[in-house]
């Protein structure tokens, strides 16, 4: 393994950034540096678990934002059940573990030389883990210019758009109309749009008498936990939710504030447009996505890219045909971060990566207090050579309950501490 040199950054002027020379490991056997790009569910977990598994490995986490803002629980923020400050966290916990946290946006790679290029500098690595999340396919829809992106927030990456949508809902007059679109497969958090619809309906019922929620869904039926969502909607929101299936949006018009399918034009006071999705731009920039594809293929055992050796891809950006039948969820990204961490630590020491083990649980609120859930356990099948779902472990809750709602809150507290503390 050739000696890695320094992180080529000038005085970037960030409190959390430690610029101590990696030459501390010049003694030879310890020259193992893992760079993790993207400090979300996958990346923060991977960085933390590398240190937990082997604290002698040097870990650098590169993230373009100042703070981690959680998508899970951001639907709660939209309707005032939580505040932005409840879902926003710094990276000081990871820094305290000896992980160097650098704020930069990575835009390129030289995999042969072994470095990534950021807007501000470059960083060499022995192993790279990337967890870029998703980006939106605005190009599929006519008229989605900058004005339209402002007019029709997605609020599907937690941040300023979460605040915008929350404020628009708050400003809605009683008797108004909210419209939201559901993305087509594959998208992050399959039950996410339906949880949002449930919470918005609950909010309208309590605060905006006579208001309606129109949902335009390209699927033939609710795409996740369908029976459970439907049961809750039938019980609570029949006079609020107008749920329409097989609706494909063709165009939007920011000037008229309308969105149109091939047959019909829709107007509403608040429009939440969640577009179709693809792997985050970073995955494309680093050459991790095959021509004409949208997601990154990986080896099922180690989550190493099949296109660029030495680079592991985790989280939403992975192609589930290769990684396994796991949904694109924060829980799975957290699982994947641990699998990649264990694989990288083993391989850096010249050992075989341990077998992977993944799980998922997605709680979804169906009202201000009640939740439903779906679980999943996934393992590597030696005979099949891929990750498979254990059917008996992968089912939904029998119904909805306020106890599950409390568990959902606990889950978030738990997974945030498992990523960032």
């Amino acid at each position, binding site marked *: 393994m050739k000696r890695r040199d320094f992180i080529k950054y000038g005085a970037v002027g960030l409190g959390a950034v430690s610029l101590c020379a990696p030459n501390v490991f010049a003694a030879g056997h310890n020259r193992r540096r893992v760079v993790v790009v993207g400090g979300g569910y996958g990346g923060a977990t991977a960085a933390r678990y590398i240190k937990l598994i082997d604290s002698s490995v040097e870990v650098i986490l590169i993230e373009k934002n100042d703070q981690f803002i959680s998508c899970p629980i951001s639907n709660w923020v939209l309707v005032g059940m939580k505040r932005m400050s409840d879902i926003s966290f710094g990276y000081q916990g990871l820094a305290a573990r000896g992980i160097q946290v650098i704020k930069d946006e990575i835009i390129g790679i030289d995999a042969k030389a072994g470095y990534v290029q950021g807007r501000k500098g470059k960083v060499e690595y022995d192993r790279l883990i990337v967890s870029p999340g998703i980006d939106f396919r605005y190009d599929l829809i006519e008229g989605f210019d900058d004005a339209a992106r402002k007019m029709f927030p997605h609020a599907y990456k937690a941040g300023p758009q979460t605040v915008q949508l929350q404020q628009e809902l708050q400003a809605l007059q009683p008797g108004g109309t909210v419209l939201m679109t559901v993305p087509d497969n594959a998208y992050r958090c399959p039950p996410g749009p339906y949880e949002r619809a449930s919470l918005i309906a609950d909010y309208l019922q309590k605060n905006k008498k006579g208001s309606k929620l129109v949902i335009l869904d390209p699927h033939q039926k609710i795409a996740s936990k369908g029976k459970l969502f439907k049961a809750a909607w039938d019980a609570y929101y029949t006079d609020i939710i107008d749920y329409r299936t097989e609706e494909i949006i063709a165009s939007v018009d920011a000037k008229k504030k309308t969105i149109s399918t091939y047959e019909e034009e829709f107007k509403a006071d608040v429009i939440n447009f969640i577009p179709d999705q693809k792997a985050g731009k970073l995955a494309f920039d680093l050459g991790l996505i095959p021509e004409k594809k949208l997601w990154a293929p990986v080896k099922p055992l180690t989550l190493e890219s099949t296109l660029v050796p030495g680079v592991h891809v985790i989280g939403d950006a992975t192609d589930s045909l290769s990684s396994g039948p796991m949904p694109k969820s924060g829980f799975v990204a957290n699982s994947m971060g641990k699998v990649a961490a264990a694989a990288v630590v083993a391989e850096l020491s010249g050992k075989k990566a341990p077998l992977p083990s993944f799980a998922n649980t997605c709680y979804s609120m169906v009202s201000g207090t009640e939740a439903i859930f779906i679980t999943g*356990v996934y393992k590597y099948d030696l005979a099949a050579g891929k990750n498979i779902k*254990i059917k008996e472990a992968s089912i939904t809750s029998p119904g909805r309950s306020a106890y599950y709602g409390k568990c959902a*809150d*606990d889950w978030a507290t738990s997974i945030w*501490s498992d990523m960032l503390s």
Partner: protein
Amino acid sequence: MLRVTIVFLMMSLAVGSVFASATEQGDGARLSRTCAGCHGTDGASPGKVIPIIGGQVEKYLQKTLGEFAADKRPGDVMRNLAKGYSTVEQKQITAYFMARPWVNTSHAVASTAEASLVASCKGCHGSQGEGKGSFPRIAGQHPDYLYLALMEYKQGERTSGLMKLVQKLDETTLKQMAAYYSSLN
């Protein structure tokens, strides 16, 4: 955690490659990592109703996991998830959690109750609620969780001959007991 790290270091000095073969310890860690999503890193659950399992007595962990998997115990997510692991894997997982340090709840409810309140519990759960044998640790567990568990025994949802004594106790007493044990270390 610290203890394990030191053991690993010594082993790697001695034999060089600890991870090369899939040791039981290794599998336990590998399989247990997904549990952290809800139970916190190493089972030190920071929430309020999802129980702390790191440092829990091994026999009880084994019993509960086995019963969840066999649909013999009330549970929700756990009845699903436990079915994802073979009996051997369940043993590896419980051996892992048993060996983690117990981290007390951060939601302990201050209790003014006299120790006599829980005189009838000590014989099984230990003088400080620390657990032993197949009797679970209840000291330092989340108060909300303890109360929910006690109510499940009271209402007969959890069937345990040995816990029948709580059926005679009223809810206020059970709440006081939950508070009392949550604040014991």
